[in-house]
């Protein structure tokens, strides 16, 4: 029988002050987790309302203006408040120092500061809802964003502040990975999740400042009418798009790379096999980070960009397919002849493989100049984006949550309910978004409030899917929260994993390890050691 450790990071100190002033990376990770879960709920409710409105052509429950604000808020909240911080700031914060065998991240105060900055940024963004909302879409394209009467300044200021939080997390992780590894933990003995977080942190640090200056310029444009983006004053609105996508394309890799890292952990652990092509996976993360800075122009194929530039950007965009493909093939090869266990985290890893591959391949359609002219700004783009971001990142995030949940709380969730919830999410997701590929190829433009009758059945089916999806998440919320207090005790290593964080008790002690950890084997040496599972 497993028993809970007497002292651990959750009960060593008690009271709300011990949480709000904590410098413990694990607690900060949990604080982030609460923040992003709240954001996910808000963004999800907006999404459900948008889908509800689209059930029939014309008005169902809101007018066009409100609808514009709702899809903007759905996008902005999900991107800036949920996906970007989700895996790095919540799970990464919790796991990274443990995986490296360190006591904490390099700069614990900066870490806590980044959470407070996140909260402030979120509050400013929420304030924009009260101050009139935003109806520009999450991309804030000029000149519309400089002329609309909605509160663009508050929302962009919120995103600007959130950028600092993201930079601080990235900075902290880079330094921690460089300087805080346990004795014996060489670069190529690091778990692949760390490589994913490392590549992510590089993008966070190098791309976010450009978003910062872009948003600052947008605010200046609105407040002082400086004319940089205003064609009437000799400015260029396409310059805004260049600036914006110079950040926001790499940003989609801020969103997906840590997810890919989690998948590497899950596939190796639940196949009980040495990961296939460790170095290839590690370097492909860096390759994706590098290429991500060179492809922003694929968002401007129809914005009047020169033909030559479009061709180069199109070619460079295809290059992203190579490292992504390397990863997918290596994961599949890892599973080959493995002893696969279909525990909840693995189910999400498999969902990721399936959905991310669809998302990645449809990205090639959009990167191709000729097809993009047809598909640009249709539901095809919406579907592609959601297959990568929700089918990819969110599935990986959920896999990671279920994987490290027993490490966080020391208790296991109910696997039967988890299976049901996974099934609903998987089915609901495909109902909602696969339909949108079809809608897009049939010519349904994205972001439209009204549409022709011929699209109604597909729109309705997509909306039904969103209800299935919502139900799946509802069930998950219930069984996860229930398990925190009442789940069965999980033990130190419930999944039989070889990485460092499973060597300590669950939940871990404040200093992460009872004794100084020493690396005796690689993170995936399942050919030599099969660790015992403390829970089945």
């Amino acid at each position, binding site marked *: 029988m497993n028993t809970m450790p007497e002292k651990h990071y959750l009960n060593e100190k008690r009271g709300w002050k011990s949480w709000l002033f904590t410098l413990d990376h694990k607690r900060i990770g949990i604080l982030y987790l609460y923040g992003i879960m709240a954001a996910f709920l808000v963004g999800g409710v907006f999404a459900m309302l948008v889908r509800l409105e689209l059930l029939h052509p014309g008005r169902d429950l809101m007018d066009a203006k409100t609808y514009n604000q709702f899809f903007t808020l759905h996008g902005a909240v999900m991107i800036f408040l949920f996906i970007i911080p989700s895996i790095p700031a919540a799970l990464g914060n919790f796991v990274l120092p443990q995986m490296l065998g*360190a006591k904490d991240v390099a*700069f614990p105060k900066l870490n806590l500061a980044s959470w407070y900055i996140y909260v402030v940024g979120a509050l400013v963004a929420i304030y924009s809802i009260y101050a009139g909302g935003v109806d520009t879409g999450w991309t804030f394209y000029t000149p519309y964003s400089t002329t609309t009467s909605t509160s663009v300044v508050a929302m962009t200021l919120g995103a600007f502040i959130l950028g600092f939080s993201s930079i601080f997390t990235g900075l902290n992780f880079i330094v921690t990975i460089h300087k805080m590894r346990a004795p014996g933990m060489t670069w190529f003995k690091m778990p692949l999740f760390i490589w994913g977080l490392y590549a992510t942190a590089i993008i966070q640090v190098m791309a976010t400042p450009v978003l910062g200056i872009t948003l600052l310029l947008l605010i200046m444009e609105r407040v*002082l*009418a400086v004319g940089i983006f205003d064609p009437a*004053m000799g400015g260029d609105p396409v310059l805004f798009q260049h600036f914006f996508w110079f950040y926001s394309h790499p940003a989609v890799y801020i969103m997906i790379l840590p997810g890919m890292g989690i998948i590497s952990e899950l596939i190796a652990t639940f196949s009980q096999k040495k990961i296939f092509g460790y170095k290839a996976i590690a370097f492909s993360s860096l390759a994706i980070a590098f290429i991500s800075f060179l492809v922003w122009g694929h968002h401007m194929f129809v914005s009047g960009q020169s033909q030559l530039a479009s061709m180069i950007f199109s070619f460079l965009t295809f290059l992203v397919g190579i490292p992504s493909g390397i990863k997918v093939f290596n994961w599949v090869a890892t599973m080959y002849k493995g002893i696969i266990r279909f525990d909840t985290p693995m189910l999400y890893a498999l969902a990721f493989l399936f959905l991310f591959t669809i998302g990645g391949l449809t990205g090639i359609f959009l990167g191709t100049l000729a097809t993009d002219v047809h598909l640009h700004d249709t539901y095809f783009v919406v579907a592609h984006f959601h297959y990568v971001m929700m089918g990819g990142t969110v599935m990986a995030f959920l896999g990671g949550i279920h994987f490290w949940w027993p490490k966080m709380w020391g208790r296991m969730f109910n696997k039967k309910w988890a299976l049901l919830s996974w099934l609903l999410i998987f089915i609901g997701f495909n109902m909602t978004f696969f339909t949108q590929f079809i809608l897009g190829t049939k010519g349904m433009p994205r972001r439209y409030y009204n549409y022709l009758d011929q699209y109604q059945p597909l729109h309705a089916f997509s909306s039904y899917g969103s209800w299935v999806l919502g139900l799946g998440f509802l069930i998950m919320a219930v069984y996860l929260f229930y398990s925190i207090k009442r789940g069965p005790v999980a033990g130190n290593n419930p999944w039989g994993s070889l990485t460092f964080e499973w060597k300590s008790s669950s939940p871990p002690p404040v200093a992460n390890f009872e004794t100084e950890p020493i690396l005796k084997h690689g993170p995936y040496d399942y050919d030599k050691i099969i660790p015992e599972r403390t829970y089945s």
Partner: protein
Amino acid sequence: MSTPAKHSAYLAHHFSDSIQQSDSAKLGMWIFLLTEILLFGGLFVAYAIYRAWNPDMFYNAHKYLDVTLGALNTVVLITSSLTMALSIRCMQLGNRKRTMHLLLVTLILAGVFLIVKYFEYSHKIHLGQLPGKYYTFTGIEGNNPHIFFSIYFMMTGLHGIHVLAGMGVIGWILKRTSRGDFSPEYYTPIELTGLYWHLVDMIWIFLFPLLYLIG
């Protein structure tokens, strides 16, 4: 690591020794400076694009910047970088008094820079050489001269904010030095402040020729 490390007052609990601690701090600072360069990078790109599109207008508009005051400010900032670097050297040699004096001089020079900038700004505001729609001056030939002043004010303004932030940090470091926080064994915060201050200086060294010396 296994030998009981001497945990001095300044060594944080999660580092195993002070070398690891100061190496981490320096790496962190360099990464932060990288983000600063990228932040300004956006403005430099905007500058390059609009100057390439309106070379004549940029040439005509730049004549209204005061080269003498700009050059004076360049000298002021470079000197302040020198005093900053010397203050670190003095702390390495354990001369706390000298360190404080040099930091104070750095702080004063930063203030001089801002005062000169204030006179430059107020002269332009007086003439109506302002960004965007507030531009009312009529003496400059070429398309959209307000764009030049938009870029001028945003670049020097953002730089000015960094000077102001630098003054805050230098003042705080000065206070910590007088409190006796630092010694030849531990002076990382002064060193990091120096790195930041040199960057602020460097950015001005790029801004000065780009804005004042077109032609």
